[in-house]
């Protein structure tokens, strides 16, 4: 065994674990080159560069499972961890559902999903700094009320993932991503407000211009100035796209096999049932070219795919890895996700709340009196029973028009009812993350102030 980063080492690591007594093993190698610059008020604030690599090894001993990770690639360190992990596994409980996927399910060919951009790796530091400064400058130029910045910058990552298991799977892919963000602070002389905007993509050429990002960040921040609370009431609520994406993340938690097999989701036992309004369609697709959630195989070596989760309000599929699928008597949907250690969890590919036919303006104009939500804080979402209560900021809608900014309120409801109360879905979808949603109108929620 030669511990050099690459497919051969991953294969050898899994094989060595089996030679030493494991009934099955899975090795993961990760290599990353990261760059990050933060800027503030026209100057570089921090500059950070790094390269790191690490390996993880999961072993099974007839249903008993343990895992280890290390970043020391010396032969002594690697061999010592292999010995330790087998001893650790002996101390755990045998679980019939634990284990590697069936070889027939593993990926055998790998599509080129266009997720690596050499331009990101090659971009000179000066240009990266410049992209960050341009975004900030664009935000400053919008208004003298943009008085400060809480941060902003350019980040990039280029990484390689190698996965191999003792059942013969071996795969490798390279990916890249970059982000430009800026966080303006606005003041009307009385109170300060902050917001942000960003873009994040696999490829540099897909990014919005820094000028567009900066202008949007300024617009979002300025519209919060002078915010006040409104009275307690039940009204329609519109989630703008980035807030609707947070709702989609909550739905992901509820359809994730990890919550479902534990019966810790309000969507347990409802496959084939109507769980939402007809205008709700949710798809997970890990194969869309050049998107942040795309990759050729999942963390157990299964091919990624397109899974319809909710179709016209009907729950069609949960998102599963091998373990949760076995627990539920279903098939994996290729959504295994793992870190260096631990049993694989469930992760989305690109989770998409599919766009509807209405423009955001049409949706706003349909509301007589209600709240257009642009920011949520707090963690008051309980996916076990659906209880939902978060602090919100946004803009008040009166007679179909956006009027004054709102802050200092909470919105509350229950996810079961909220999903059924979705009345309109916007056509305004943009892929700047792996969880993506357009504008959504929920018929009724409780505002408390």
């Amino acid at each position, binding site marked *: 065994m030669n511990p050099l980063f690459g497919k051969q080492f991953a294969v050898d690591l899994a094989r060595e674990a089996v030679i030493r007594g494991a009934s099955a093993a899975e090795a993961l190698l990760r290599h990353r080159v990261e760059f990050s610059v933060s800027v503030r008020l026209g*100057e*570089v*604030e*921090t*500059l*950070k*560069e*790094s390269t*790191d*690599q*690490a390996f993880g090894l999961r072993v099974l001993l007839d249903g008993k*499972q*343990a*895992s*280890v*990770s290390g*970043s*020391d690639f010396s032969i002594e*360190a690697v061999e010592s961890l292999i010995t330790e*992990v087998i001893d*650790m596994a002996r*101390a*755990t*409980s045998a679980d019939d559902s634990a284990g590697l996927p069936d070889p027939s399910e593993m990926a055998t060919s790998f599509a080129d999903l266009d997720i690596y951009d050499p331009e990101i790796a090659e971009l000179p*530091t000066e240009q990266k700094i410049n992209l960050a400064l341009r975004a900030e400058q664009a935000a400053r130029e919008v208004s003298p009320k943009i008085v400060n*910045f*809480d941060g902003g910058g350019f980040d990039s990552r280029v990484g390689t993932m190698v996965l191999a298991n003792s059942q013969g799977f071996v795969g490798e892919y390279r990916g890249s991503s970059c982000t430009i963000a800026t966080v303006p602070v606005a003041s009307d002389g009385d109170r*300060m*407000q*902050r917001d942000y905007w960003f873009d994040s993509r696999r490829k540099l050429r897909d990014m919005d211009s820094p000028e567009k990002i900066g202008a949007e960040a300024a617009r979002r921040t300025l519209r919060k100035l002078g915010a006040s609370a409104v009275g*307690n*009431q039940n009204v329609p609520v519109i989630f703008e796209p980035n807030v609707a994406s947070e709702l989609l993340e909550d739905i992901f938690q509820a359809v994730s096999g990890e919550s479902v097999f*534990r*019966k*810790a989701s*309000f969507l347990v036992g409802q496959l084939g049932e109507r769980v939402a309004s007809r205008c709700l369609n949710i798809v997970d697709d890990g194969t869309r070219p050049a998107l942040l959630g795309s990759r050729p195989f999942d963390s157990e070596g299964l091919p990624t795919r397109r899974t319809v989760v909710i179709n016209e309000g009907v729950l069609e599929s949960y998102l599963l890895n091998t373990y949760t699928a076995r627990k539920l008597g279903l098939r994996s949907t290729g959504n295994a996700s793992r870190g*260096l*250690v*631990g*049993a694989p969890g469930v992760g989305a590919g690109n989770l998409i709340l599919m766009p509807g036919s209405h423009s955001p303006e049409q949706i706003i104009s349909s509301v007589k009196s209600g709240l257009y939500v642009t*920011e949520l*804080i*707090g*963690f*008051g979402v*309980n996916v*076990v029973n659906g209880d939902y*209560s*978060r*602090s919100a*900021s946004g803009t008040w809608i009166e007679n179909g028009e956006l009027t004054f900014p709102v802050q*200092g*309120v*909470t*919105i*509350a409801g*229950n996810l079961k009812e909220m999903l059924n109360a979705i009345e309109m879905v916007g056509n305004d979808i943009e892929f700047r993350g792996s969880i993506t949603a357009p504008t959504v109108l929920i018929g009724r929620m*409780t*505002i*408390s102030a």
Partner: protein
Amino acid sequence: MTDNKGIGFFSERYGLTERDIDRLLAAALEKGGDFADLYFEYRISNSISLEEQMIKSVTKSRSQGVGVRVIIGDKTGYAYTDLIAFDSIVAAARTAAHIARNGGLTTAAGVSVSPSSHDLYPVEIPVSAEDLDRKIELVMESDRAARAYDRRIREVQSTMADEIKHVMIASSDGKLVGDVQPLARLGVMCIADDDGNLQIGRSGGGGRIGIDFFEGQLKPSECGIEAACQAIGQLDAIDAPAGKMEVVLGPGWPGILLHEAVGHGLEADFNRKGTSAFSGLIGERVASELCTVVDDGTIPNRRGSLNIDDEGEATTCTVLIENGVLRAYLNDNLNSRLMKSPRTGNGRRQSYKFLPLPRMTNTFMLSGSDSSEDIIRSVKRGLYAVQFGGGQVDITSGEFAFSASEAFLIEDGKITVPVKGATLRGNGPESLKNVTAVGNDLQLDKGVGVCGKDGQNVPVGVGLPTIKISGMTVGGTKL
């Protein structure tokens, strides 16, 4: 001495001498700069996870690395390597030095070992070095106790996570310090199921302690019972009220209020940049005179305590708010130099992969004079909240939210029915002005807190006596 133990670990394991460290600091400053430091870390982390009455997973991670930082004015360059070897650290130092490409000439003072000021966690055998079977037994004990509490407890998840972290910090001002930091935490989550009515309860605890902590001070069975009791209690919860009302927070973990409402807003980086709702308010009244709030990194064996922060500075007890008046911000090296204010030992980082930032340690309010019974009795209609999930704050507007997971209505001075989980919201500089009673029963939390900032997580503690706040928004559904 604890710090020598930390330093000895690195010199023995990696053969680095003080002279090597001087040369590395010189490399970091070869293009100029005001200051440079090296942060060495070696960490072993373990976890044991139980659910469905099975030990489903055990893990062990070994990581090591060195972060090199160069500061010039308010600019910082940073690079790290996961190979603790002279040549790779030199390469990282040269990368970090890029920030100072136009800088002047600075030289590093030769380092020498600095004395330690604390020995807050003299643990003979860290939990990380204990026998796996012994730890598994503790996890299983929590499961058995939770299930025995009520047959409606359908599922129990229990996790023991522990680590041992060796650190060594060397800086261009001549400082060389080290520490060995043990940490362990047991967490239990229960799901109660009463004919489809699903509720969860959580409990846990830990600290910088040895395994005897779980055999005496906090038994896993107590955690299991507490989590089960909470989940079962929520089965009868009614819809939470909506609107502003008097809120009584129970002692201990509800101190997360302070963490969100004032703690983050008092971190020096936001105040130097003028982006916090508390910027420029030192000496001003920001809370009712009943409130004195401190951040204390020096309490023995606490989860948020440290002998030295991650910049090698001894931790301290900092009075943030004294009888309602704002006294100090939480400082790290960079911000204390730029703001010309004293360091408070609050420079912390998740690991060698990250830059240190001003962070909290254990943040709590000192006891007042009221009894908790009197405080509850004084409320006509309000909410009594005793357990919370996470919280979040927008430090610029001051808006914060934290989620009550176990709460009850107070009607005519009596605790009556449990209510469903709801978000409580307030505004940082305003909310503590509305504190109208402070109990005599300060408690620190049991040792489970994790604080996130700029993508970095660090262990923290919080604490609170029973307090009463008027005019806090309860984000329920019942109008």
